[in-house]
């Protein structure tokens, strides 16, 4: 019964080895042994469990579907079943990695599926390298508004609205493969183009002369006189000006000729200014205005062209074309990897260069900004200001990035925090000075009129007094790092409760590189609403066999954060309803007078299991010990780098990106945890700068 599997597996191994894949016969033997030890007992010919046979598996080319199905069951912890002997974590990982390798490890399309490529294949093997195929990438919503601003001297023309939308899923959102431009969006683009060109050509007629209004573009004004036919050079100058603003280069002669023909066509039934405006609008709708092109020049392995590299780098870090990079590209100075590296460093070191996508990565990675979207009953006894919590964490991230030392470790374990941080300009010195961003007024009792002070935002961090010297050092033994910022804790909470399951899922996916399957269709995941029990106690429902298959990957990672309530406040005990006292809390007529609460002791322990880092696995006593362990893990660091890769590349990693990832990790470690060094490495990597495959369209070279 087993012979066929053994033969088949050996055949697969031979083909993989001949293809140069990073596979060894040792891996193959291990995978075969795994199948025999953990699968074939039930999935055999005589009485196959679930009607699934695995004893007759042929090689991957013939039986890929079944191999992948077996892999997914093992990867998601659904098989072997609970009553069977559990495989060693390392063996299961090796099996998953081996099958993935046979499949060629195609990149999953969605951002949250990136971890489906086993970590071991990217960091545990000698690095493979190979540039990706050429691609086009629709502008992000922010980049579109940057584009619009570039067309009108940094302002957004009246009437311009956002045409693009991103996936509502949590996490990294802007992947190149996800978005095109559909009909309704194209219609918005048309209207925006009309609004922008109307602003660009705003004018009035004084003494018979066309005079520009506001920030009209000088080259366009000569086309706005209905009585005077513009000259061809005037039309061409206008086209070139619009091309420079929209696409970052002048038009080619062919492009210019086509636009002038459009002008002539419009002139047959319309007036001169209207025809000119139509011609100028066309430039704003071009594919090379709406899409980042990353195709390179020619066929085979090639580097991005200088204009492509300039835009790619500009939009990696910001939302607008960087003028210096655009100018450098025009001079051909972004033609080599060294020149591009110099450009990246210059951009990163320039304090005046706007780099909003640095913070944006951390917002999408940690997702603390979701705090503002979690609806909670407004408390009367204390302030709950999620938007300020988010602003405080933004400020903390920027503070850590400014120091640029041990960035991930600092973000996970710092004992500093900005607290209700705002600024106001000192009228005398004209300098910005710290001030509380939110001032919570005292609450007035409706009957007595007595004013009661309400603890403001600083109380959520554990402070009685706000201090101007920021960041403040957090009260010892309470909270450390971003995962214990009120913003993150609220973002990963529900309307009425904490949310250890999704907190644990976040840790599993974003720090440990694991993949948790989605909630099975038809399963109603609900924690009992028993207010007299702690949340940890109520969450025990997930220990049922059916649930625990998946929840064992999450719950114990999220439970240490029960050290905080769902408003993000530190607590040493949990408040629950005292059922017995509530039952007795009645008036003389027996009517209930309301719930009576009591404090019960809080358990903050958790555990790490099957992380892929033996040094990380084991129990943790509280969230502070937990984040310190996480911050010390090489695997956590590498998983973080995988997420940085996804954000800046706009795609999931593949096996061919292993070198870029390993190089980035090496640079990060070697630089003492510099995020800048990490970015320079990634943005000058083969994965970012080079392309392969057939040449792009002729017009795009």
């Amino acid at each position, binding site marked *: 019964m087993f012979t066929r599997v053994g033969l088949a597996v050996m055949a697969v191994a031979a083909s993989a080895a001949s293809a140069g894949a990073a596979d060894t016969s040792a891996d193959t033997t291990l995978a075969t042994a795994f199948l025999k030890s953990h699968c074939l007992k039930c999935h055999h010919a005589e009485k196959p469990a679930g009607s699934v046979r695995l004893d007759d598996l042929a090689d991957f080319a013939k039986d890929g579907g079944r191999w992948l199905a077996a892999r997914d069951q093992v990867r998601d912890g659904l098989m072997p079943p609970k009553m069977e002997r559990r495989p060693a974590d390392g063996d299961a990982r090796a099996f998953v990695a081996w099958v993935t390798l046979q499949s060629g490890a195609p990149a999953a399309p969605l951002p949250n599926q990136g971890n489906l490529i086993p970590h071991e294949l990217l960091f545990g093997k000698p690095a493979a390298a190979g540039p990706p*195929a050429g691609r086009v990438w629709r502008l992000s919503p922010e980049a579109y508004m940057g584009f619009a601003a570039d067309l009108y001297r940094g302002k957004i023309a009246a009437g311009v609205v956002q045409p693009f*939308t991103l996936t509502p899923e949590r996490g990294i959102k802007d992947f190149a493969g*996800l978005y095109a431009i559909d009909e309704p969006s194209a219609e918005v683009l048309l209207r925006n183009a009309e609004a922008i060109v109307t602003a660009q050509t705003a004018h009035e007629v004084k003494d018979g002369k066309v005079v520009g209004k506001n920030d009209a573009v000088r080259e366009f004004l000569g086309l706005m006189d209905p009585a005077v036919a513009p000259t061809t050079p005037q039309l061409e100058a206008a086209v070139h000006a619009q091309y420079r603003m929209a696409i970052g280069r002048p038009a080619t002669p062919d492009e210019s000729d086509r636009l002038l023909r459009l002008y002539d066509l419009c002139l047959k039934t*319309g007036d001169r200014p209207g025809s000119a405006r139509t011609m100028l609008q066309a430039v704003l*709708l071009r594919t090379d205005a709406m*899409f980042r092109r990353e195709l390179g020049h020619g066929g085979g392995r090639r580097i991005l062209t200088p204009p492509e590299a300039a835009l790619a780098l500009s939009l990696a870090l910001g939302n607008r074309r960087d003028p210096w990079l655009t100018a450098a590209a025009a001079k051909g100075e972004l033609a080599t990897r060294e020149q591009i590296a110099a450009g990246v460093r210059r951009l990163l070191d320039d304090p005046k260069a706007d780099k909003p996508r640095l913070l944006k990565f951390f917002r999408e990675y940690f997702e603390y900004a979701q705090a503002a979207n979690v609806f909670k009953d407004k408390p009367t006894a204390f302030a709950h200001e999620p938007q300020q919590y988010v602003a405080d964490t933004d400020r903390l991230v920027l503070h850590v990035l400014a120091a640029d030392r041990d960035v991930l470790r600092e973000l996970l374990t710092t004992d500093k925090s900005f607290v209700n941080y705002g600024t106001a300009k000192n009228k005398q010195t004209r300098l910005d000075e710290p001030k509380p961003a939110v001032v919570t007024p005292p609450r007035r009792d409706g009957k007595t009129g007595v004013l009661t002070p309400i603890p403001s935002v600083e109380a959520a961090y554990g402070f009685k007094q706000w201090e101007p010297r920021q960041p403040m050092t957090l009260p010892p033994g309470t909270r450390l790092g971003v995962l214990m910022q009120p913003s993150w804790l609220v973002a990963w909470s529900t309307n009425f409760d904490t949310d250890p399951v999704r907190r644990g899922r976040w840790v599993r996916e974003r720090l440990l590189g694991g993949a948790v399957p989605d909630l099975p*269709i038809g399963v109603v995941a609900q924690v009992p609403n028993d207010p007299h029990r702690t949340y940890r106690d109520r969450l025990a429902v997930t220990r049922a066999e059916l649930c625990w298959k998946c929840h064992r990957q999450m719950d114990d990672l999220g439970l240490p954060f029960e050290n905080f309530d769902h408003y993000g406040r530190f607590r040493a005990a949990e408040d629950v309803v005292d059922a017995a006292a509530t039952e007795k809390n009645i008036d003389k007529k027996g009517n209930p007078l309301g719930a009576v609460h009591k404090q019960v002791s809080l358990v903050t322990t958790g555990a790490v299991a099957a992380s892929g880092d033996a040094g990380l696995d084991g129990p943790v006593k509280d969230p502070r010990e937990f984040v310190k362990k996480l911050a010390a893990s090489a695997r956590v660091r590498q998983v973080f780098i995988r997420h940085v890769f996804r954000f800046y590349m706009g795609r999931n990693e593949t096996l061919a990106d292993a070198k870029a990832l390993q190089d980035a990790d090496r640079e990060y470690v070697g630089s003492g945890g510099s995020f800048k060094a990490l970015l320079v490495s990634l943005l000058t990597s083969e994965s970012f700068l080079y392309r392969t495959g057939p040449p792009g369209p002729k017009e795009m070279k």
Partner: protein
Amino acid sequence: MSVEHTRRDLLKLAGYGAGAAALTPMLSQLAPHAAGADAKKFPRRVVFVVQSNGMTPGHLVPSGVARPKNGRPGNDRLEEAALKGRTLHKAIDALAPFQDRLALIQGLSGRIAVSDHSANHGCLGACPANKGPMLQTIDSAMSDALPGVFPHVALGMPDGAGNVMNYRLSAAGPGKAVPIVCSPALAFKSLFGSVSDGAGRAAFDQKTNLLAFMADDVTRARGGLAGEERRKFDQYLEAFEALHGRQKELLAKADDLKKHAPKLGERAASPVSSIILESQFEIAAAALVAGVTNCVTLASGGGGQSFGKFPAFNIPDLHGIGHGHAYGRPSSEECFVELRQFHVKLIAGLAKKLEGVKEGDGTVLDNTLIVYLSDSGDGHHPSRYEWPVVLLGNLGGTLKTTGRHLQFPHDQSKNHRTLASLYCTLLHAAGKPRDSFGVNDPAITQCPQSGVIPELLA
């Protein structure tokens, strides 16, 4: 948003698969029935109204019909009550003038779309709620059956985050979310602006020229691209081609468009939710009457936690009323009723407008169906064991909506039916029958989840 399948792919598939796609015998038999012998005489139209935050089943219960105070009805057989002689619940009493054209449907389950607050695409797709646009939703499927110049007009209101489009309720296919346009100004310009904004024929011609130029421009750019990258440009090209093609059709209907274009004035740019919805309903009515579309989706909030806000009614947070906030009223139920009343008045106003337009011996309303439901099923935190639906109109006589309250059997009964079966029924009525819709609920094994609900077909 996704580019999985463009129209070009679908056309190719249709070409290759025309033979394979032949109707099954059962569908073949039903199709002529559904289409009706004279159904093509006048266009038939459908409007889906989706309101956020759930639809309380009690709001659909007329006087004299019993419903358990707590829990769900436990009937094993369909229970029907004629609405004639009964009083509608105050939440929907604005529909009283159309009482003999209603079917108030209770007891259909939609557990496959279980989620908190909104089923997202699961509401109109009868599919899981949190897997994005995984299949074509019923409104889009109906637009295939009832084509128009604008095949599918989807209008809504903004979510407060500045998004002009809502991509979370409707889909044209797997990965192809249908954008719901949440700006009346934008919707008006799309539907009526080209010929009625006073810019004149010259501007219209210039736009036509621009669209033709852009189609050519994108065609040049896509040459040399392959696979997914080419597909992205294909979709952009199709957008310009479709917009260009539509210019001619709009020109042919210019008189009708001018005649029926709503006079929105400053309301078109109002940020007030109630005014935005009123404007969108006016635009929808005008588009149907002018004959530029036969399928409309009107969404009041919906998707994720985008409930919408109605501060003008002193209901600033719809999530809040789901958690008991009453905003000065005796209970949050008063808020739910007020909001229902507002939406039902809009629906009644739409029906009245359609009823006021002659079509043959009848009116436009005679050939129209309005489907009213919530993306959150039966409540703010829905069970979705029942998903209340209001049908108004009979779609050219193909549906039996003669003033009926229908309580379908509970979800464990062998006579139970699901939302998916209702959608199959609508497609049969529209003449493009499907035998199954959405994703089956694995928890339902004792009753069919495919096929029509015969009690609803005329």
